[in-house]
């Protein structure tokens, strides 16, 4: 077969990265994912303390603060049904600004997966993809989503990009972890770590263990 189009390769990788890294199956795995995610935030963002643990059964509900006077509140019913609220807490104590990212998978979205299945090229992709392909895909999913919004005033942090159109709860949360990291070196180290992790996972067709996904990058 002739060299496969890079775009096709990356389209397959897009789906594979989400499937292997951000689709914990069943309620138990999803709870584990959230607990380990929250646990990872303290070290990743270098916060004062750990967030409060999630406390109710279903939907999985939790919140955590970012020390730029921002609070994140999240409620996950299913992988593609969740609500994430950004709450800006001005010094006056009044919750003046609130913004929801609401996803409901019951509504129609473009069925990328079905088209790719028809192509039936996954085996070829696994043979031909490169680190660079994974990097480009992770850029789009985590590091620099093509459609994104910046938090402007009153929090002027241009490096924070909130991805638009992300319908997977776990991918969305994980991309926030990266986006709220204010340290450039750590971001770079995290990019390298995730490229290695997903290159390996796609090559072996094995799910990324939660603890490995949530591990801390090593900054020299």
């Amino acid at each position: 077969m002739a060299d496969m189009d890079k775009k096709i390769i990356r389209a397959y990788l897009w789906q594979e990265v989400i499937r292997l890294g951000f689709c914990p199956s069943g309620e138990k795995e999803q709870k584990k994912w959230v607990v380990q995610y929250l646990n990872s935030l303290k070290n990743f963002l270098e916060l004062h303390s750990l967030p409060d643990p999630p406390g109710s059964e279903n939907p999985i509900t939790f919140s955590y603060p970012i020390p730029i006077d921002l609070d994140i509140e999240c409620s996950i019913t299913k992988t593609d049904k969740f609500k994430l609220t950004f709450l800006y807490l001005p010094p006056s104590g009044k919750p003046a600004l609130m913004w929801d990212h609401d996803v409901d998978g019951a509504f129609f979205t473009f069925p990328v997966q079905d088209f790719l299945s028809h192509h039936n090229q996954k085996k070829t992709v696994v043979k031909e993809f490169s680190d660079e392909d994974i990097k480009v895909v992770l850029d789009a999913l985590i590091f620099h989503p093509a459609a994104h919004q910046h938090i402007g005033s009153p929090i002027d942090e241009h490096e924070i990009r909130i991805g638009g159109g992300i319908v997977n709860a776990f991918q969305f949360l994980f991309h926030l972890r990266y986006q709220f990291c204010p340290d450039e070196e750590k971001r770079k180290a995290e990019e390298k770590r995730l490229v290695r992790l997903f290159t390996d996972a796609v090559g072996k067709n094995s799910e990324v263990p939660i603890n490995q996904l949530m591990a801390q990058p090593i900054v020299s």
Partner: protein
Amino acid sequence: MKRNRFGINLDQGIPLSSDNDFQLLYVSCFKDTSDQLHEWMEQGNNSLMLGGQIGSGKSTLIHRAFNNNDISLKPDVAIHFDRETLNKDAGDFWGVALAEFIKAALVNHIELSFSNLPEELGGYRPDDWNSLLNGLRPGGFSMEEFKIKKELRGKILDNRDYIRKTAVEIGMRLQERLKRPFFIFASGVDKFNQSSPAFLELEEVLAALATFKTLYEVNIIHLFPKPGTIFHSMERLFIPTAQQETVIDILTKRMGVYSQPIRKQLEVLAQWSGGNPRQAVRLLSHFETARKNRKRNAAENLAFAIHETAGDFFAYSPKPSQELMEFTKKTAKMKTSLLFLPGDRDTAVRALYGNWILIKRPIDAASWEAAVNPLVKTAFSAEINPEEPEMKMLSEYTSLYGISKEGLDFNIMDDKTGEKKDGDRLIWEYFASVIERPLHANLTEVLEILSGALLSKDRPDRVIIAFRDPSVLEAARAYLFAKANSFQYQNYRHITIKGEKGTQPLTALEQFLSEETNIYSIEFSGKWEDEHLEALDRQRDRFIDFQMLWWIPLRDLKDYLPHWIQLRQLFEIFILEDELLGSLSVEQVEADLSFFNDLVEAEQSAEANVVHNLKIVLAYLNKNRAVVDGRHG
């Protein structure tokens, strides 16, 4: 201690010690003092006292001075007088010093055949100095080793003059071998109140060390020894309070990249620190806790931080005299003669040793520039002065954002007139109350403040939880143990230590701390004796690496805290409300239990610990709810 590279680094105000600590968090506060210390380390031949108030940054300054690559500038021997359980008489203190001398002699291959001390003290072979060293300073803890150590120290006490001569001879031989002054660091002298019996016992050992080039780490009150003692003519260096800008720098570094949004609030906190670095860090730590809980606005967060810090450091403390505090406030001076006059000495020592008054700098031999600690001003004046700099800064916030009953949990209406109190009066009452009557906290409020440390293994903090009703203890403990395991597997151990006459509570504590675990929970029972309480106070720094929960009956805590001026610096203090049902609901605990029950995969796991402990809490709540329902039914 694990440190963050770019983010927030808060703790209970422990000294900086590692290279990483200094690289990330150090701010040069006392350049003159630091330069003089370096000069003495390089060129000095005689002893030096380095003194400052509690939390002023002595240990950090000393660690910084020793933290260099020039081995000749590091002490040959560091003697930690504050880290021993048995520290009540000269036998104990000589035991600690002798062990360090012997260790240095063995490392430097010093000829010790001039003495048969191993045989004379311990019945070892006359040249078996290693066994004597192990006997004096065993590596671990066992009752057998403890007994040997105690016996050796008893013999040392009986032969203290002989021991002094032997130790000095070892020191002289070391000096000869090193071909330079034998440099000793006498650490932890600052933890001894000058008028305590233990200090009188320690004094003879300290005097003997002055034969060599010894650096004494002392409190400011030690800088004024009695005439006629060897310390009276000794060279001394003083650590003053830090400048406002310097304190802001310290707090800014502690907040890392997250400092910018709260820059203005850091200025207020720095003002309330009075220039004491540890007080500043504690204020920031409470401020961050308040921010995280997002129940309050910026003014209330600041007021909460000030209130909690004052409670940690001063609640139930015996106060210095009103006259002294008023004099200091009025004149901004403290006379050194007060430390010598029989009528004034006690209150002056109390004011300085307890940080009620903070010393800014010496003016001359007879007086210092001084200020009343901002945290305790309300305890000495009936009216708050809105023109005081720290009040002025805080008032800007309270007038801008207001303070509410919900935010600070206090009475916003005047009981007599029914009128709404003004902001300054509310704040004054709020701060004044904490010294005499600290606010009680329910269990979830305790957890909110503790969560920074308790939920994570990275930060070993210590906390005292006072209680009235012992029947809530098991459930309260179980709740905290459960929460501590929410994210990480954390082992915990609990012990009840009895402290009545004839008991050996400190030995029991030492044995307990020699066991491996993540959280050490200790319930104090019986009435502990003053001698034991004071020994605990001196051992403050020994507890730095331990995550500890101390459970103490409230009636006893009021008697214990006056003895714990040092200890409370590295603890946070809570008074637990009697009623757990008020803050924990059966439904909430059941929901938590249901969440974690699903996740249990192994018996030795965080999730299993959560479930085990939540079941204890749930059983307590169900039982008590049934009792309450029965009463109302």
